[in-house]
């Protein structure tokens, strides 16, 4: 069994567990609230079993190279730095609010990852802040507050 196939089957098994939990949880609801979830989750479980079998059958007809790249390998290695950037942005927003975090994130990402010149990265983040403030004023928008301070909240 190829690693990709194994990953796909595990992915489907996780979906199946979620569907079973939803079916089980729906049993306590009144008729009008449980009818639709039970019909949909039940049908989905049935189709998932068919898809599970079909995925295994398809893999037998295909050479291992055509299965696609496994996620838990090179792909995750390539993607991880960007997921970490995203995680850092979320942590920053939760601590110092959106506007300052956005400016810092865009400047740092543009300079280190986008290989922009320092002044271009700085200009981009200043323009973004101006855009956000104008958007906030124009449409009366609100920003996620930071734990420590939120200057434009």
């Amino acid at each position: 069994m190829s690693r990709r196939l194994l990953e796909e089957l595990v992915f489907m098994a996780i979906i199946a567990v979620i569907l079973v939990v939803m079916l089980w949880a729906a049993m306590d609801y009144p008729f009008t609230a449980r009818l639709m979830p039970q019909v949909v989750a039940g049908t989905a479980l049935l189709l998932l079993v068919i898809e599970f079998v079909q995925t295994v059958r398809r893999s037998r007809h295909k050479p291992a190279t055509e299965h696609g790249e496994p996620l838990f390998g090179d792909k995750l290695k390539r993607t991880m730095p960007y997921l970490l950037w995203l995680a850092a942005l979320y942590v920053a927003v939760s601590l110092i609010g959106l506007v300052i975090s956005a400016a810092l994130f865009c400047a740092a990402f543009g300079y280190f990852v986008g290989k922009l010149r320092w002044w271009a990265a700085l200009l981009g983040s200043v323009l973004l802040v101006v855009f956000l403030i104008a958007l906030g004023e124009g449409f009366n928008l609100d920003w996620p507050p930071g734990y420590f301070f939120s200057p434009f909240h």
Partner: protein
Amino acid sequence: MFEAALEALSIVLDPSRLVFMLLGVSVGLIVGILPGLGGVVGMSLLLPFVYGMDTYAAIAMLIGMAAVIATADTFPSVLIGVPGSAGSQATVLDGYPLAQQGRAGLALSAAFSASLIGGLIGALVLFLILPVARPVILSFKSPHLFMLTVLGLCVVGLLAGKYPFRGILATLFGILIAMLGSAPASVTFRFVGDSTYLMDGVPLAILAMGLFAVPEIIDLLAENRAVSKVKTLSEGWKSGIKATFTHRWLVLRSSALGVAVGAIPGLGGSVVDWLSYGQAMHTTKDKSRFGQGEIRGVIAPESSNNAKEGGALIPTLLFGIPGSGTTAVLLGGLILLGIQPGPSMLTSNLPVTLTVVWTLALANVVGALACFLLSRPIARLSMIPASKFAPFLIIVMMVGAYQNTRQWGDLVAFIVIGLVGWLFKTYDWPRAPVLIGFVLAPSIERYLTISASRYGWSWLADPIVIVIGLVSIAILFAGARVKGKSQTREAS
């Protein structure tokens, strides 16, 4: 009727009202270009301003906005592979591959010209159908509407992605996601646990942006490239317009389909582009290019999603039953202005109705022209490496996500759905049907609950229900068989 139409035209062309129509068109263009937003968001933005406005000016502004979203939403669909709104999901399938091949110009100009023709046909049909639509619309009952929605979901599921059952499963996941939160027919909060955020359900804009934009951006960054895989926007703008006229019958068929489906309440918005994509595929001999950058796959959904606006206004104006989410908010606006939609729209309020028709036509022309003018600079965006624009796009999307309920849950839901979307993309599960299932879930649940409560199980014996059910099953099996055969052929 003809004299009334001329009088309505003079009302629409009044400069003071024309300005408001242009304002609505401008807002519609911006909302359409921003991924994940759509007619409902645009209508919600404009609605607070209609208080105290001149009735015709307010209608011009609202209809002007609604009319052009289906044209402008082509930009994100083609350039970054993210549907600008629910009605432009099918455009992504061929529009995005065309942009990746450096033919964004061809895709955009074909889409805009098809949208323009579709929009005008929609307005014309709305004008012609007003006096005769009533008996047809009223003949649909809840069980029929439920079965039509099921049929739509089957078609969508089959057409999206490589594997038929994954498409249908994805629509079912979308329906299940929509069931998080309060149940419509009883005082029950479903699948929310202790989360107060989930009690109102997952907002549509967050689901759309998370499912489509986050996975695309992550993969673009990981591959370190621009949206376009080639360095030039080789094929031009004239060939796009030419392609639309070459496929004129496809444009006409898709527009007719758009009007017809748009007129069915709750069905239109997110299914019509898939249905017309399906008929384009069905009527083409060489189907192998669909999904790889086939221009017919852009023309068909774009002409139908503009035409459906005319169709969606038929039940909205004549019976007060909104044909789509956008028209639901429009309905609220009309009531705010003191206009009660219903049969009076053909008698005492006829000038208002005809003003709507003219505005729809005029806004489509203005919107398409504006899109043509803007398309060159905006298409160049597809050449910029992802690492240069991704941080700005991520921030704009986070801002958009946070405006839904203004809770941290919005940001958490956005990123969690984004990661799920990324897993879907990685393992070849189609994402568009999740969104369609989500959008249609409230109507399908309402129709099922009403059918079960009012008719028991006897509605299953209704001849129309049986016919639609058999058609759905036939489509399901035939589609699965055709896809299975093509996969076997590819494997061998």
